[in-house]
């Protein structure tokens, strides 16, 4: 079973951001066999995201979304463009995600905006963000301006990106990358670093 998590930061209903997320999901599901999809609408988690910024721990809905992301074999992330970048809501979800969660995870980045003038937001905002988070960003990102939903060209790019994501999800098994993933608090709770090792690290300056 392959696990795909789709994160959409659209605010309105219906939302072109969610619409793009659905098209990318459908194309990815078609390219993969036996895939389980979890949709995360950040609008529904907006309060819990702010709460975690202040309290440091996630509410129940947000905790479930974070757990799905931790377990995911691949992600599709879609944001509207606000002030020449991803939205604050979108960024907050990744700000409060525990360090190391996305290590080695394939991520398809996508964005929507009113005009094609914003199209490079994928390259100057989303790609660096996910590079920083140690994710594997799919070569083709998908940007959709309002006009694009009227044409057929968008579907070509959706299919190409989805195919690339599916290929990475097939090839980059989490088992293979597990050795390079940073240890999280949950990892420590499951198998704590022995104290003699902590003493050694303290004296050797690691």
């Amino acid at each position, binding site marked *: 079973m392959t696990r795909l998590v789709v994160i959409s930061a659209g605010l309105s209903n219906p939302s072109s951001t969610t619409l793009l997320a659905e098209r990318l999901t459908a194309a990815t599901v078609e390219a993969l066999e036996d895939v389980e999809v979890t949709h995360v609408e950040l609008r529904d988690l907006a309060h819990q995201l702010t709460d975690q910024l202040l309290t440091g721990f996630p509410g129940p809905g947000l905790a479930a979304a974070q757990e799905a992301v931790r377990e995911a074999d691949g992600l599709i992330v879609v944001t509207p463009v606000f002030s020449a970048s991803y939205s604050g809501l979108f960024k907050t979800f990744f700000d409060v995600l525990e360090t190391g969660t996305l290590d080695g995870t394939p991520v398809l980045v996508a964005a929507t905006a009113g005009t094609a003038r914003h199209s490079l937001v994928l390259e100057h905002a989303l790609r660096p963000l996910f590079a920083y988070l140690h994710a594997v960003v799919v070569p083709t990102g998908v940007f959709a301006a309002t006009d694009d939903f009227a044409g057929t060209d968008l579907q070509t790019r959706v299919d190409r990106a989805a195919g690339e994501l599916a290929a990475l999800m097939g090839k980059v098994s989490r088992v293979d990358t597990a050795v390079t993933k940073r240890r999280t608090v949950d990892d420590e709770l499951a198998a704590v670093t022995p104290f003699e090792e902590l003493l050694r690290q303290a*004296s050797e300056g690691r």
Partner: protein
Amino acid sequence: MQFGIFTVGDVTTDPTTGRTPTEHERIKATVAIAQKAEDIGLDVFATGEHHNPPFIASNPTATLAYIGAKTENLILSTATTLITTTDPVLIAEDYAKIQHLTDGRVDLMMGRGNTGPVYPWFGKDIRQGINLAIENYALLRRLWSEDVVNWEGRFRTPLQGYTSTPRPLDGVAPFVWHGSIRSPEIAEQAAYYGDGFFHNHIFWPAGHTQQMVDLYRRRFEHYGHGAYDEAFVGLGGQFFMRKNSQDAVDEFRPYFDNAPVYGHGPSLEDFTEATPLTVGSPQQVLERTLGFRDYVGHYQRQLFLVDHAGLPLKTVLEQLDLLGEILPDLRKGMAEGRPANVPDAPTHASLVAAAGGAKDSTVYAEADSATGHRAEDDVQDEDYLEATV
């Protein structure tokens, strides 16, 4: 089972009146709260340590010694002692001295509870937080257990032939707890030494506390200090009580909504559901507190945070009166179903007994082995006086 209170010593504006106490008022209020804790029959008073506004919690040893002189039975403790930025040589001296002054009514809780800017004020690097906690505590233990210490490490100057004075009362060091909200390494450290582990249990959901305590208990057993359920566990907690639960909610809400840590975030209702905070009648606080055992097992120490978020002293003292009223039921409830092998929290008396009785450990000064001089001799030495004129 011990019950007590802990304070972080914050100076916070009362959101209902807009009034902020002065440092002097807050310091005196802390003493009044500690005396009240003794009056209502609590076992422990613990103070935090902070070195920046809006806190009055610097120099916790002066506070504890002063309270020690004004009380008879209260165990004085810390929540927490900054083991990262405080020189273990000073911690060893200070708390051994308080042991002597209070006839052993003192223990400590080690913690890293510090914000980034504090570290450089004390010449330390926050990126080394865990390593500092590990090295400093390892040294502290030696300073208390060995009369003469030769030591070299990464974070302070070496010690050669060093004796920390006074030696611990009756030859027994104060018991130590280690407090951490979210660092498994600290639970591991507590387990390794067979010390106590204290979970803050205020800011995070119960499920997280359960995981940390479970790790500590497993590792305590692993290191051969006793069975899983024989480890020493302490929990924090917070409540606001009124006879009528709706009155408690109405009165506490503005303090909650504007609280320094979680204010302007989740609703009071969401937070009371997600964390151990209980706002309601004394009966509700009693039942919720007795329920803590359901996820950490039978434990040894329960401390409540009562003086925070700008609550006026009068209200805090009323909260303590209400706590005093349910205290007998809390003790009775915690004793129910408690297996015989579950120990009480270690005290000075129990540690002395375990060590086979009290022994005086005074180290009398001898002449310096290299010069044959004592420190007092040097200042009377004529050559020395001439050289310094």
